């Protein structure tokens, strides 16, 4: 079990204890006081774990919604019925990333990790991702949390996404050889672009950058040349393709693995070119 899964399982366990989400209904009333005491005791620890685990839940989800369980062991149209599939009515979409869309009010199928923990009629927050899309959605469960205020939940999810985005950008900034604010000049094809070895080659075009500020790294002696991948195939479709005269923040990457046959810096990842509006964020994260 990897760390994320472990923390997620802890979250599931703690949540069950904290809120009596699935299991406290069956607790005798006499035990509630003990549970309350346990909650108060564990609260600081549990809260700390919940925050990091919540981000992980969001990281691993593509469709988060609040729903009502309709049936266990059943499925919606075009989704295969399995022992652990449940029909859940989507009451409110908290976050939907493509291709989930907006199925508010419709039934979806959730493939539960532990189907015995939830019963028809229960409401919950489902962290899922799509595994089947036809006439209805099939969703794999990442985690299930109790219902909470939807506005609060949306804010938490939004904050988690921002945390994840910052993590990704931080990693990219750290990897970058140089981070500059500048304007891209006219690009010209390299020999690699004129005579590719494969249709999946990046097709590097070289362009100078007129630098206005250095956010990371020192001004080199010569001009700063960046290689732009002009290929639109699956490997390079997301690589930034700034046009001449375009101003932005450029995370200039080096070819550390020496996998390209051209010199200079490279724009490889979608995060390697950002609009000027992101400058404050970049400066915050680069520290």
């Amino acid at each position, binding site marked *: 079990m990897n760390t994320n899964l472990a923390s997620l399982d802890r979250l599931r366990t703690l949540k069950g204890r904290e809120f009596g989400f699935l299991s406290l209904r069956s607790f005798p009333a006499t035990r509630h006081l003990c549970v309350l005491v346990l909650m108060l005791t564990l609260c600081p620890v549990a809260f700390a774990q919940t925050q990091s685990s919540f981000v992980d839940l969001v*990281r*691993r*989800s*593509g*469709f988060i919604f609040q729903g009502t369980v309709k049936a266990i062991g059943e499925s919606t149209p*075009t989704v*295969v019925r*399995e022992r652990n599939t449940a029909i859940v009515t989507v009451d409110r979409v908290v976050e939907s*990333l*493509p*291709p*989930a*869309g*907006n*199925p*508010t009010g419709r039934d979806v199928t959730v493939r539960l990790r532990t189907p015995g923990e939830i019963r028809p009629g229960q409401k919950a927050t489902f962290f*899922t*991702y*799509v*595994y*089947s*899309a*036809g*006439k*209805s*959605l099939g969703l*794999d469960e*990442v985690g299930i949390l109790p219902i909470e205020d939807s506005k609060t939940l949306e804010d938490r999810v939004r904050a988690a996404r921002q945390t994840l985005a910052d993590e990704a950008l931080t990693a990219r900034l750290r990897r970058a050889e140089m981070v500059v604010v500048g304007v891209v000049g006219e690009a010209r094809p390299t020999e690699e*672009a*004129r*005579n*590719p*070895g*494969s*249709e*999946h080659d990046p*097709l590097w075009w070289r362009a100078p950058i007129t630098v206005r500020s250095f956010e990371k790294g020192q001004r080199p002696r010569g001009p700063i040349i960046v290689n732009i991948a*002009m*290929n*639109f*195939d*699956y*490997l390079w*479709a*997301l690589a930034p393709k700034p046009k001449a005269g375009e101003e932005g923040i450029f995370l200039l990457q080096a070819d550390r693995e020496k996998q390209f046959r051209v010199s200079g810096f490279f724009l490889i990842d979608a995060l390697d070119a950002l609009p000027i509006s992101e400058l404050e964020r970049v400066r915050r994260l680069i520290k």
Partner: protein
Amino acid sequence: MLHKRFFTIPLHVFLILTIASLEVRAQVRVVNMIPNDMSDETRHNSEPYVAVNPANPLIIAASVFMATPPGSPNGPMLVSFDGGATWVARNIIPSSPGAFFNTGDITLRFNSSGTALYAGILRAGPPGGLQIITTTDMMFNTPMTVLNTPRPTDQPYISARTVVGGPDSGRDRLWVGNNEAAANPASATVDQTLDAAIATPVFTQIRIDAGTPVGRDNYQVRPVSSADGHIYTAFYRRRGNIAGGYNADVVVVRDNNWGSTMPPFQSLVDSVTMVSGQNVVASTPVSDTAGSSAALGNDWWGGDLYLTVDPGDSSRVYISYSDSLPGSARTIHLRRSTNSGQTWSPDLLTVHSAKNAAIAINNDGKIGYLYQQLTGTSPNTRWQTHLRRSTTGATWDDVTLADFPADGPSAPTGMRIIGDYLNMVAVGKDFFGVFTSYNDLVNANFPAGVTWLRNKTPDGAASPHFIGTDGVSTVAPSIDPFFFHVAESGHIQVPSGVAFGSVCAGAIGRATLNVCNTGSGNLTMTATSSSNPQFAVTTPSGGFPIVISPGSCFPFEVTFTPSGIGAQTATLTISSDDLFVPSVAVQATAEAAAGSLGLSSNQRFVPTVIQSVGPCQSSRPFVVSNTGTCNLTITNIVIGGANAGDYSLSGLPAFPITLQPGHQVGSGDLNVVFAPAALARERIAEIAVTFVSDPASGATSVQARQLCGEGVRTGARVLVTQGGVPVPQAHEISLRRYWGGWFGFSKKVDEVENVALQTAPATPGTACGPIQFHREYGATSNPTQLVPGVYKLKVEVKIAGKEVSKTVWFNVDTCGFNGTIVVDF
């Protein structure tokens, strides 16, 4: 009679009845493959591929570049379980969560037994590189399993086949063509396993270019396998760079034994160079645009290669390749070899400005050629997807499947919008294919029609557009995958089963079973069968196969020959070459009937004077009839039992006799005659009728009736009643005989007092009945007979303590016994 006439004239003249009301399916069906639940989708989905399960063509798997959903470790594959009418995206391709593309290049094949799907992919996300994956889950509900160790290479192109016969029968074999830069310059490679279905198949990398390429072989390496173990592979062998591209040989290599010949893939030697691999064309220029532009239809143009083999003849091989000869830039060529790749025909088709070719050969040897052509001149270019078909390779039809602007404001934006491959396969007679096209409801045309699964405005809307999953939002047009099915085979339809109703056993019922063809091609019927031998579908005089043209029906004669009585059913199975419904089962019902015997009830005769007194007798009509709807055969009628000699039959015909429905034995003149031989209260017998109860088997049954009569002498029986109720005792009964006419002579015959009521009970199980009387003459309790004559009977009873009397006169003749003298007070 109609049937007999039908089956005696030539088949091709009479057998086909055109049914005007039959709705014939469209031959070409185009379906947009984006599922309804992905109605928000606006990505450019390019480079589609399709595989059809040969054992069940309703199951189809297709790939196209789509996003992997965030969170999902697996990317979507489009699957259909209804022959391509509807599609579901199932995330089963190993990928990376949220990957921009579900996978890089991907090709798919089912094994020929239809139990497994194999794919060669360029993995999106770590570890990247070539992966060969598989699933045996034909619901495509579980992620595909990786079979090999990945490594960097390009354009995996898969062929799969299940060995039939021989020691390796049942083994799945894979050939994955790819271009591996690590092997440059001879980079054309086939990854091969001869047993793919085991847990850890062994793959070997076979470098198939035995020549001397310059720099490298081109990207496209296309293997294809035949059922007899001939494996062909085509590739471009680069011979040298030229401006804007390179010169290349278009090479076909072959292995005659599943790729296991040593050295492999060297069974075909070029007739000129004597190097392994026959040049289809040598050193032809191939441009490589190394990018795309509006003038190029916003796509990349390079080599284009497709190879296929005739499923009915492994020596007939078809290839499509592209070149860029001066004056005819980027032209695709379709050629054929009829000698296993040794020599090649001139172009069967030559298409300029075209790419993404695919060839499929159906079971009839018909050629399907699919390609996408950039027509017009900039800025008015259009991408058109064409399907061409030919039975000979000489004359071709042309179906435009899609047509959209490639340039200008109405064109889709972006680059490499359709990609560099698509696919088409043939299963049976039908063609199945996928292509990508702009889906714009305004600017894209689908001349053969199109079906949408995604939300859209209704047909005829003023401003047609797509609608999102929320049912409200407008969704922008984009490049989508499209599936098409060309039905060359017929489609069987049996409008109804067969209901014979009642059929008499021993006879043969006949009915018509119409088998219709609602498909767009001929339907070939191969056999019929019945689950019940009493039902049979008559094989036409010309035998099978029977060909039914589209929109026509064939009237099969169905017979019902009962072998027993009662309700009968059968399942009639009609086998045909309908691709999706190879056999149809319909119900046949019948009621096997026989005649039904109707008999008179038990017979009870009036007291009859015994033979020793005189030749006296009584008779009763006895009805033996057929109350059913079928003929009834009576084989015998006999009288038996204790006093059978007292009875006889009159009006009896000779047996056996067959009664038609409603008829009677002896035409109603059959009588049972009672002539008792002894004085007795009960003279009993039984009349038994034997008839054929199951005409099919000849089995007979017997039904019997009881006979009962009383043997008496001439006489009478007196019962005294009061108000209709027998009195317990008559005070006095006296009887005098009178004779002499007007002279009035008389003589006392009998005078008894205090005569008690007597009851003679009947023997149970007989036709006899109880008898009550106070005094009888000539019968069991008083055998003294009355001589024929006139009698005066006087009866006295006491009513309320007073004696009252009545007098009754009766007559006794020579066979007379008056058994019903009731004197009522």
